[in-house]
Every structure is written in C-alpha cells, then in structure tokens.
C-alpha cells in the first residue's frame, strides 16, 4: 500500500520531469521561430492514457486521452518497448488541428505497460492549400494538410522511415519539420526513459499506485468543489461574427449546464450545426474549454488531470459546431475556444455567482507579408498575436490590455517590429470607454495603428466586430473590435474582423481589440471608482454621466 509521502514525491517528480521534457524539446532542435509561441506540450499518462499532470499549454491536456485511446484500440496487442506513435488527426485522435502533431510512446516495466509519454507540437507546414497549413477560408479538412491517423513512427526503438518520408513529402518546409519530428521523438522518449528509471527505483506497482492516487486525488478535489454547488440547470449562448467563409452568418454556441448528484453535465446539443469555415471544434477542445472554465469558476488552484473526468459528463449532437463531423475544417479552433469559454462561464455563473464574469475580448492575429519589400537580410513575415481585455466580474473590474483565458502570448515590442520590418507603429493607445460599463467595469482594449513603409499583404484574423463581448447582470457590452484600412484617406473603410488586404507603401491602418463586458448595473458602481476611472482617463466624463449617472 502506497503512503502519502511517496505519492507526493512522485507527483513532484512527474511535474519536474514534464518541465524537463519541455526544455529538452527546446534543446533538441525545434525550429527557432515556432518554439517562441510555446505552442507545444509534453506529458506523462497512465497505462490507460490518462493525463497525470496538466501541461502549461492547458488545452492540449484533454487531447491525449482521445489520442491514446485510439492508439490502444489499434495497437494495444502489438505494442512493445521502443514504439512511438504519431498522429495529427482531429477526428480520429482528437488533435486540435492538423498542424499540431502528437506523439505517444508506451512505458514498460519489463513486460508490463505502466504508462505513456506524450507530446504535441505545432509544425511549420504539413501541406494543404495555404503555406503554413492553417487557412482561414478552408471548407474541408483536406484543405488543411496531410492527415495522419495514429501510426507507428518508431518500432522497438528503430525508425520507420517510410512514415517520415511520407510526412516530409507533404510539407513545404521538410527540413524544419524533419528537425521538429526528431526533437519531439527525443523529448517523448526521454519521458519514457525517466519513467522507466522511476519504476526501477520505486517499483512498477508503486508508480502505478501513485498514478492512481494522483488521479483519484484530482477527482476528489473537483468533486468536493462540485458538492458545494447548488443543484440545478443553467443555459447560455453566444455568437461569433462568422466562420470566415460565410461572412454574413453569425455562429451560435450554446451550452446547458446541469449540476446533479455531485456531477456536472455540459450539454452542447443546442449549438449551431457545423460551419463551412474552419472554426469547428472537436470534443477534445470543448472539454478543454469546460475544464478551464470549471476550474476557473470553482477554484483556480484545483489541479487538473484526467481524474477530473470522473465527475464531469459531456453531451453533443453530431454535426454541430462543438462536435463537427469529418470533413469539416477546424484550423481556427482557438478563436472558437475563446468564444466557447465565454459562454460556458456565463452558464456556470448561475451556480457560483461570486465567480461570475462577463465576456472577454478574445485574441487576434495580425500578419504582414512584405514579400520583396522586406529589409535586406531580415524576415519578410511579420506576425503578431494581440490580446484584448477581460470582462468585469463579481467584485472585480476586468483587466485591461491583456491576453485572456486560454491564450497567454507576449505582445511583440514596437521597437523590435520597426527594427525588423518596413513598418511604423504610429499609435498604441488605450481606448477610453472601451470597457463595458458596469458596477464592475470591463477591461479596456487598445488601438494599434500602423503605417506601411513598403507594399505588403496584411492578414487579419479576429472576431467580436459584429458580436461584441456581452455584459452580465445588467452590465453593458464591451466596445466591439474594429479593423480600418486606408485610414485618413477617402478610401478609408471598416472591414470585417477577418480578412486579407493588399496595401501600398504610405497606407495606414489600425486595429482596435474588443473591450471586456461589464458586470452589474453601472449606476451601482462605487462613486470612488467612477471618479478614479475619470481621473485615469479610462472613462470619459460624458460616458460617466450617461452610463454611470455621475454628476
């Protein structure tokens, strides 16, 4: 029988080991540019493919169970030490999109399977209609690149070069992808080796018992938090501007949350049917949104692992936006995730009003392909991820100018942008009144204005222009996002939240991210807070008067 001390020691060791695997992955030649987005994860799983500790890239955490289950189904009888399996398949293995390639390798103690080591990482290009494989206008998953069902890529420690060659033949960046596969296999195998050492030192039984105890501990921790909720049901819905293909159709996401008998059921059956454009989600991503929201709502310190699944149920209707059927495209899943989190949190607020929060402003991408206009010796591809703001919540104003929820990337410094690319940033400023008014105000968003110093193609991918972040409990919506090209000229125009534009040297454009929604009736806002908002320039005196009833 295992004791509490050994469980804690092994729990810390698995956490330290995954940290080390992440770094080993860095060190092993992973492409310099992509790794800066940290779009990868390394994990340890039990013999059923259950996650033991959550990776920093949280939304990968729910994928491995699906991936491993399929690997066990296909290869459970023939699996042996030294095997490594690969897949990027959103439908067969639950990967977020085809650019994310997952690897799992079984861990054996002698003859006995005791767990898996796994990793998922973004690849520079895996084919499809667009360079980089993520196309905002894909209408089938086949447009998004080569699909790999779970297959063996290393057998008993020996490379299966047929598979490597097949993958590389489908990539526009075969050298980068080859290096990345090598790095990922090495990090995954390092996890195997270290776990084998732990099994030798502590005994395979002890390691398996510790895994079981760590999983049960998480179940118990989440169950205790759920037990404190009132029983009942709540529903919520929200909209995305469009799927990027059918620009005029808004996309509705809906959830019905039921708390009963110590369990939580998330039912998405009432969401829109799947979209033509690539904003569809697979259940693995929906689960990530649910667990993220549930933990955020119940207690941010709760530890996530697959033990948490034991008290949570999911229900989907087939062919919907939250449970798409092949071959629906999925490459813009993150934008859909961020909307879905808003919706789930809104429903959860019914059960835990003290953690209620209004909608956040999501996350947007801005790319500029400078082509031949790039500075000599420097890259021609400028790419930024720009955040927004959180909604106000119970007793809490939303944070301004920040990455929100599942996204957490750095902003690119202006001084770096201008030093590397023929661009000038002419403003980066707070937008007064952009935070939804409320007793607790939504966070403010920013305006970032650019001047093209050379011709280039600008690609914007974002949401929240038609459907701004909503307030709750009487709070007002946050300011909608905007993207304006040819600013300051007769040709100035407001564009949809996503699009591609050929601009010329001297053209100016600007973007405004969306502000957070407000919480509660603004008239009830503490006067001191209103005064401070005016003093800080967060709220204009006019708005203070109109929305907050300030004198």
């Amino acid at each position, binding site marked *: 029988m295992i*004791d509490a001390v050994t469980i804690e020691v092994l729990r810390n060791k698995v956490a330290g080991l995954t940290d080390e695997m992440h770094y*080993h992955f860095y060190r092993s030649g992973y492409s310099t540019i992509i790794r800066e987005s940290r779009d990868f994860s390394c994990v340890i799983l039990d013999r059923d493919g259950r996650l033991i500790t959550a990776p920093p890239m949280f939304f990968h955490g729910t994928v491995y169970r699906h991936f491993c289950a399929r690997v066990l189904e296909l290869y459970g009888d023939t699996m042996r030490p030294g095997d490594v399996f690969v897949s990027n398949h959103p439908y067969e293995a639950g990967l977020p999109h085809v650019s994310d390639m997952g690897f799992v390798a079984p861990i054996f103690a002698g003859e006995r399977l005791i767990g898996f080591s796994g990793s998922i990482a973004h690849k520079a290009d895996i084919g499809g209609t667009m360079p980089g494989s993520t196309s905002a206008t894909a209408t089938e998953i086949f447009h998004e690149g080569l699909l790999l069902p779970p297959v063996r890529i290393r057998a008993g420690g020996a490379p299966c070069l047929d598979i490597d060659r097949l993958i590389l033949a489908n990539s526009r960046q075969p050298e980068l992808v080859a290096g990345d596969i090598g790095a990922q296999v090495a990090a995954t195998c390092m996890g195997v080796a270290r776990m084998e050492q732990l099994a030798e030192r502590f005994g395979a039984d002890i390691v398996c018992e510790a895994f079981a105890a760590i999983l049960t501990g*998480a179940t118990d921790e989440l169950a205790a938090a759920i037990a404190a909720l009132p029983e009942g049901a709540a529903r919520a819905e929200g909209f995305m501007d469009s799927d990027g293909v059918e620009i005029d159709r808004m996309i509705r996401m809906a959830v019905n949350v039921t708390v009963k008998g110590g369990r939580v059921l998330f039912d998405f059956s009432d969401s829109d049917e799947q979209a033509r454009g690539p904003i569809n989600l697979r259940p693995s991503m929906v689960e990530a949104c649910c667990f993220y929201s549930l933990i955020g709502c119940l207690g941010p310190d709760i530890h996530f692992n697959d033990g948490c699944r034991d008290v949570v149920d999911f229900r989907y209707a087939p062919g919907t936006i939250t449970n798409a059927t092949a071959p629906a495209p999925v490459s813009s899943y993150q934008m859909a995730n961020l909307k879905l989190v808003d919706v789930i949190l809104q429903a959860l607020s019914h059960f835990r009003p003290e953690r209620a929060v209004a909608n956040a402003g999501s996350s947007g991408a801005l790319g500029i392909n400078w082509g031949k206009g790039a500075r000599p*010796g420097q890259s021609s591809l400028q790419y930024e991820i720009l955040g927004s703001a959180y909604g106000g919540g119970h007793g809490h104003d939303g944070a301004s*100018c920040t990455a929100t929820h599942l996204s957490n990337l750095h902003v690119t*410094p202006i001084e770096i942008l201008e030093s590397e690319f023929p661009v000038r940033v002419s403003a980066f400023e707070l937008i007064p009144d952009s935070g939804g008014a409320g007793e607790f105000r939504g966070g403010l968003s920013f305006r970032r204005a650019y001047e093209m110093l050379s011709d280039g193609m600008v690609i914007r991918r974002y949401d929240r222009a038609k459907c701004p972040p909503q307030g709750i409990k009487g709070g007002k919506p946050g300011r909608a996002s905007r993207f304006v090209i040819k600013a300051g000229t007769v040709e100035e125009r407001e564009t949809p939240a996503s699009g591609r534009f050929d601009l010329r040297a001297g053209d100016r454009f600007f973007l405004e991210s969306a502000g957070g929604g407000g919480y509660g009736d603004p008239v009830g806002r503490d006067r001191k807070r209103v005064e401070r908002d005016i003093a800080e320039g967060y709220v204009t005196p006019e708005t203070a008067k109109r929305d907050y009833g300030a004198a």
Partner: protein
Amino acid sequence: MSQDGRGARYRLGVDVGGTHTDLVLLDPASGETQVEKVASTPANPSLGVLNGLRRFLDKGIAPADIAFFAHGTTITTNALLEMRGARVGLLITGGFNAVQETQNQARDGNPFDYFYDRPAAIAPQSRTFQIPERTDYLGNVLTPLDEGAVRDAARALEAAGVDAVAVAYLFSYMNPAHEIRTREIINEMAPRLHVSLSSDVLPRIREWPRLSTTLVNAYLAPVLTRYVGDLSRGLDALGVRTAQRFLMQSNGGVMPFAAAETGEKTVHTLLSGPAAGAQAAAWVARANARAGLVTLDMGGTSADIAFIEAGVPLEVTEGTVARRQVDVPALDMTTISAGGGSIARVAPGGFLTVGPESAGAVPGPACYGRSGDQPTVTDADIVCGFLNPDYFLGGSQRLDVAAAEAALNTHIAGPLGLSVREAATGIRRIVDERMADEVRVFAAKRGLEPRAFTLLPFGGAGAVHAAAVADELGIARILVPPRPGAFSALGLLCSDVVHDYIRSELTPLARLVPDHAEALFTELESRARAELAAEGLGDAEARLEREMDLRYAGQGYELRVSLDGIGRIDAAGLKAARERFDARHAQIHGHAAREKPVEVVSYRLRARVAVPKVQPRELPAPATGVDAAAVLKGRRTVWFDGREGIDVPVFERDGLTRGAHLAGPALVEQMDATTVIPAGWTAEVDAFGNLLLTRDEAKR
C-alpha cells in the same frame, strides 16, 4: 585602494536579512574573522547595522581602524514588495499610453484565474504625460521634442506632489537627445525631483522592459538615496572614517555609496540579497568552484539555489522582482518555497504538501513556542533529532520539542494515520526531493550536469538537508563553510566593484560595420571611466570587458557573448563572435544553426575594479594526531527513516581541527548551523576549516 587611514586595517561586511543582521570583520593581516549576529530592525535597517558595529567597537576595535565597509541590504527589495517607494510621475511618447497597460500582454500568476490584476501601476495614467516627440529605429528624429509640453508636465508633476520622474521615450536607446533635454527642463523647473531616464537606466531595445525598469528605478531611487545617506551619517557618527563604503548589487559586484546616492543605479541592488552568498562561494571555494558548485542557501522561508560554473556564477539579464520586470544583470538563481519555516499540510485531494506558505520568523515554527501551531520543516527536523533544542543559535533560543510533536500530530500524523516521526520524516523527504528536483531541472535548462558538482550549503538549515539532497542528485561532495550562517556577509568581502553598461542597436551581423561597433564600445567605455572618476575610482585600474547580445534572426531572445581577447573590432573579430555565439547556443539550447543569419541586438560593457578580498586562511596543521573523539560533545538519538532511532555522536564544530575525520552517522553542531552526516558519508576538516563531506561510493 588604501589611500585613507594609514593604520586602518579591518574590512567589515554586513548583510541584513529578514530576521538577523550578520557582520563579518576581517583582519587581512592575520586572515582572522570575527562574526556578530544581531536582530534586524526592519523599520530602519541601518539601526541594526550600527548596533552590530557597536558590538565590535565594544570589544575594542577602533572605528578608525575600519578601512573598508561593504553592505548587502534588501531595503529596495522590501520597499518594492511593500510598495513603499516614491510618488512617481512618467513622461512617455505621445500616443503610446497602452504600453504601460499592456506590459508584456501575457499574464503572470495562475492561468485559470480570470479575476486577474496587474500589479498596481507605479505611475498611473493620471500621473503620466504624453509628450509629442518621436525618434525612429535608426535614431533619426521624426517629430521634434515639444518642450512646451515638457514644461507643462513638469509644472503638473510638481503640483501633484511627485518625488521622482521616469522618462521613457520610444527608441531613446538609439538617440537619447529628447530624454536628456527633458531632464534639463525638469531640473530647471523642479530641481527637487529625481529624474530617471530610460536611456541611462537601461538603453536596451524593447519598450516595456525598459519602461518598467526605469519606473522601478525612479520609484526606489529616493528610498536608497535616503538610506545610504542615513547609514553614512551613522557610520560617521560612530567614528568610522573610511571613504571605502560599498553596496552589494544583483550582479555579484559592489558599487560605491557615491554611485548609490546618485540614484541612477538603484535597480541594480534589487536582487543583491542572494547574490552575496553565491559570490562568497565562487571566491572562497574557488578551488572547488572551477569544477562546478551548486549553492543551497536554506533559510526560514525559502531555499535559494545558484550554480557556479568554471569558477563564475551564472548570470541572467532579465528578471522579475515583486512581479515587476527589471532587466539588469543578476546572478542566475532559483528560489523554491523550502525553508525551515515552510508549512506542511494535508491539501485537498489528500496530498501531503510542504510550502509555499511559511511561518516565517513570526510566529515561526511550532517549536519556537510563539503561537505558531502549524508544523514546519524545522519542526520535522527537531522531532527527528537533527536539531538540538538547547543549542539553537548557540543556545540563545530554546526549542519546544513537545510543541513540534503536537503540531505534527494534529495536522499531519493524525489525518494520515502515521506516527509523528513517520510524518516528520515524510516532510523532510518531500522537501529534500523537491530541492533536488529543482536543482536537476535548473541544471538541465542550462545544459549542466550537477553530478560532477560540489554542493555548498549555507544558511541556517542548508547543512541539515544537504546530504539528502546530494544523495538524490548523485552528488558525491559537500562543502560546508566554516560559518554557514554568516556566509552572505562574508560574500561582501569577496566582491569587486562592477558596473554594467548596455546599448542596443539591432543590426544583421553581416551588415555591421566593424568601426561602428568599435565606436559604440568606445562610447560605453568613456561613460564607464567618467562614472568611475566621479565615484573616486578614477585612478584605480579598471578592467573593461566587452560583450555582445546576439541572436539568430527573428528569435525573441538573445545570448551574451564575451568578446574577451578580440580587441579592436574588425571583420575577423565579428566572425569569432559569431562562432562563439553558435557554440554558446549549442551549449545552452543543444543545437546551433550555423547557416542562419545572426543579428546583434545590444552591446555590453562591464567595468570591473578589483577590491582586495578575503583570503581563505590556511589553518595550522595540529602538532599531534587529530582526535575527533576529543571534541565529542555527546550522543543523540536520530531518526533517519522515521521508524528506527539510531544513536549518533555529536561534535562541536569549533573544536574540530584541520584534518579531523568523522564517519557518518554523526552530527556537527555550531552556533549558527548543524551539519548532518548520514551513514555512508565521511567528513573531513580541510586546510581552510571547511567541512568536506564525501560519499563512500563503495556503499552505493
């Protein structure tokens, strides 16, 4: 450097910690050191410093005989943690007031907590003035400085009652003219105000880290200036005459008080606390340091871990203190919540966790008997017999074993169905393995293999836990310095004057004109010489070390590459720099991209003025054979495994002479520390009084 006080000879190092102020007085002639420990006085730490100094004076040391005073203080760190800095105003480029709100955009802290707050602004928007002006990435002025707007801002800031002003314009590292002119105007209109320019504090590319570092500097400059002034007057009043007064910095070097009083280098003191100990290790144990050292400073609330590779402490150039980004060079350390005061509890899910909560010094561990009833690591240590309840801090504080047992029983042993000693052993094991795991991951991330290193524990609890940590890591050597409790203070007598300078200019290396690079370095060198002269070190021989920050084109971070030995920059020198970068990249990140274009991002200069240091004193070999049994103090029952107590000999450290040899299991006690020597380890007192523990490999 001995221009003042002809007969003066003593060198004094004073390190202020959270609970105690440690003083080490060195007589360089004999190499002898004297140590004092007094209570810290957090409200005004200089009082504790002077109290400690009086103890030496009471013993007959003449104040005029003190030739050198070096001081490590956390005054700025604490002021930042407790938000007790100056009232700060900010001037920025017009149209860019989202920079300070967005910061890095990414959130720190718990990623699940959507009730996220950034730390309170040092200069809120209401004290921020947007000045029309703009410089481009080459340093060309696009919009001239609006001096009228600066004047208006100066008037408004004076009216708003600010004490300090930060000025941070875009691209000021390429052309500081607008910031310099802004300071002139403020000095003219409001001479009372301290002004920190981003082009002085951190002329480095990336607007938010530069702005943040400048804000922190402005926020703390008045605090440090006042403190150093108070302390200086206090020293004068006690009759200390020397002008050789220095302050510890984060980079492991010291700065003269004169530099501290200008307020320009205040941010360089923020991480100075743990730096002194690492510096002491690198110097005192330099014979071992060449082969690699891991230092483990285990105190009341946390354990600080640092690596010394090839004799030199590892450094970083980016850091965060109290959630504020401060991008100045600092020794590379990691801190984990594993101190004597770390609290053990049964967490949700039934897990036995230790830390991050700490009982600190007040109320302290349960065994302190000061109303603390939560079980801590120190309680576990005492219940297992490792600490002597009657000899804690040399017997000045008695520990209550029954209170420790009761706390362990109520909170851990009872709920988990363990015996009290099993619970205590479990807590020790969790903490020891966590420290080892931290060392392992820290080392892996820097491409180091800790097995070959020597572990150097210090702080009150370091040597109690060192052997267990070493066992877990496969480290075979542990070096316990003579005074583990005063090791940081000793570090103050081991440090050179070090000033760091930087200047960014992002250029593809292939397009860099060597003469241009040479000119940039020359400019930094003139600045260094001018500052040293202003600090009264103009005549001293300064070593000027050049470095470049390089990266592969498009990477988000740089690596420092030394230009040592390259001399005047030419094409061959740049080629050599590139090769060094590839090699360094391969060491740290495991691979190099030799075919990829490289960019130079910044130019660095380190000015180093040597300060005479403590020389480890060789002990005389004892005349007769060494007999450890002669200093046997007693015997005590110790529980290593929680089940079976074993009777072990206890030795007094001060009685052990050079060459003394002890076989584990044994304990060595001294006023400020206890060393645990488990079975399978042997200890020997080396020529310098260090206790060197070696694992008996045959038994592994």
